[in-house]
């Protein structure tokens, strides 16, 4: 059985291919502007590494910020559940997880099955997140991969009161001006971020074992700081950034017992941007293949597909990446003509999110 988990994060996209419970291919790449393209590129590279093809996949689960609109995914699961599940696969004893992503930071509790029992997430401020560290690395002109080790060399950390990504930057500059060692600046920042993470962790229950996921787990300085703050040595998986994708793949595995696929009948097609996520949901379970939508849509978005003998409407493959250009959204469409894909669908199999 071959399954895939794909994690479209705000800054990077990851994919993991699992064959009979073993990881056979994976990839980590930057998230481009169009999450759909990114998704395809990511999965294709991962499959390529395992010399497999898209059609070989029995089941795919998407997670992360762009999870709702991965066209080839059978379903999506939140990154919180996926991280817990992924960590549990490596370390069943873990009960407390800290995940630091590009723009957010999460504290998670889970049980011995890797099921989430409690979680908390940071709010509107990006202070003390992955992006934050990128900016700092930029100021100290030290590669992101090295700033961690930098802090370890520190003798006297400098205090940072603000964690505003941009302003910690100017504080750092200020210190540089005073000729403060980069290591001491970095150590100070780690202290500030560490405190922030700890207060987040305190809002769930801190019980052993403790694991750190996300890019941050590669940052030795932060890991040391967190070990000190939390008072537990964290479990670190070989590729902490991949955990979410692995978790998703594991969920995918559950979904197809044996080789029989129980896929969510609903698939979302659409696009996302900073103003929100926009998608059309097609429910193949409800669709009776009446073809009305295919005839009605003025932009020829739909076509009928035949899967295991059942006719059901889908969005044309060539249209997948053009939805934002082709479909104006149902409310607009409804005002333009009296028949829309939704109104003609007697079985309510089509719905728009915008």
């Amino acid at each position: 059985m071959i399954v895939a988990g794909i994690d479209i994060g705000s800054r990077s996209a990851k994919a993991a291919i699992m064959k009979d419970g073993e990881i056979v291919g994976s990839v980590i790449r930057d998230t481009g502007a169009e999450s759909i393209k990114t998704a395809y590129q990511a999965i294709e590279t991962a499959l390529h590494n395992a010399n497999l093809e898209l059609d070989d996949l029995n089941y795919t689960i998407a997670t992360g910020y762009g999870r709702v609109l991965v066209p080839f995914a059978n379903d999506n699961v939140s990154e919180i559940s996926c991280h817990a599940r992924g960590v549990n696969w490596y370390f069943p004893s873990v009960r407390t997880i800290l995940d630091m992503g590009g723009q957010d930071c999460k504290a998670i509790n889970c049980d011995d099955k890797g099921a989430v029992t409690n979680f908390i997430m940071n709010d509107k401020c990006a202070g003390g997140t992955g992006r934050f560290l990128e900016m700092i690395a930029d100021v100290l002109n030290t590669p992101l991969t090295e700033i961690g080790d930098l802090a370890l060399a520190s003798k006297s950390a400098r205090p940072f009161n603000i964690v505003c990504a941009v302003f910690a930057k100017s504080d750092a500059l200020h210190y540089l001006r005073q000729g403060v060692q980069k290591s001491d600046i970095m150590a100070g920042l780690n202290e500030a971020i560490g405190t922030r993470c700890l207060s987040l962790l305190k809002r769930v229950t801190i019980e052993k074992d403790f694991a750190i996921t996300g890019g941050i787990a590669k940052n030795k300085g932060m890991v040391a700081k967190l070990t000190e703050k939390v008072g537990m040595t964290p479990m670190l998986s070989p590729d902490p950034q991949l955990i979410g994708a692995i978790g998703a793949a594991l969920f995918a595995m559950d979904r197809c017992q044996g080789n029989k696929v129980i896929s969510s009948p609903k698939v979302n097609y659409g696009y996302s941007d900073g103003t929100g996520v926009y998608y059309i949901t097609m429910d193949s379970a409800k669709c009776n293949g009446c073809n009305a939508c295919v005839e009605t849509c003025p932009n020829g978005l739909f076509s009928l597909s035949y899967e295991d003998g059942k006719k059901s409407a889908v969005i044309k493959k060539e249209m997948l990446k053009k939805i934002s250009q082709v479909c104006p959204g149902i409310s607009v469409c409804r005002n333009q003509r009296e028949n829309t894909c939704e109104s003609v669908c007697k079985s309510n199999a089509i719905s728009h999110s915008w």
Partner: protein
Amino acid sequence: MITAIGVDIGSLTTKSVVLNETKIISTAVIRSSDETELCARTTIEQALQQIGLSFNPDIKVIATGLGSKSVTFSQSKSLTACLARGVNSIYPTARMAIDMGAESSTIIKLNERGRLTDWLSQDKCAAGTGVFLEQMAKLMNLTSAEMDALSFKAKFPPEITNTCAVFAESEVISHVHRVPATLREDIAAGIYRSVLGRIISMCKRIGIQREVVATGGVAMNKGIIAILNQELGFDILVPDNPQIVAALGAAIIAREATTGAKM
């Protein structure tokens, strides 16, 4: 002959103004570096070179801005005081000034005698500062100047809802990459609006009073000034070289200290 020099050390640029008894005889603006002391000296020397002179320690120097206290050859004065003095010397009728710097915005109020009576500055969060604007311009592969020029063409500026620079970044990116993409001029204007929203809020907090003057590097952007005028509902005054106003103020204070004569 030279009577006094003022230096304003910003996070991005360092400015100096050289005065004789009656007027400005030279100015210089250089990029700030990590060594404050060196920075201050270099900009002064540059200003002096332009008029074929070199620095002599007898000249009274007053420095303001970041780390100005640490400069050995000068006295330090607060930015607000220098701004007030500078603004008043250019526009005696000014009652309020909006200084938009690289990493902080400061609003000052002056009384009819041109004395500083109130100020408000925000330096806790990057939203609404020069760096923020530069970052946003970069996202659209524009220089601040290009973004500014574009902003005039804006027809339907979108509302940039995120104030946190990091989130605003992804918001702008999304506008850029949206199909069909939001026009860059509209995005630019949208960014200005969100920045000015915060600045005007600060003005209202201490009470808007005309005439209002705009200073600081950001004020060199005609586009942002145009929108500021719109939002305020009246035209604000912008000196020819808004960047050096604080340095000018520092210089004047220095001269007053030496000659006791007021400009």
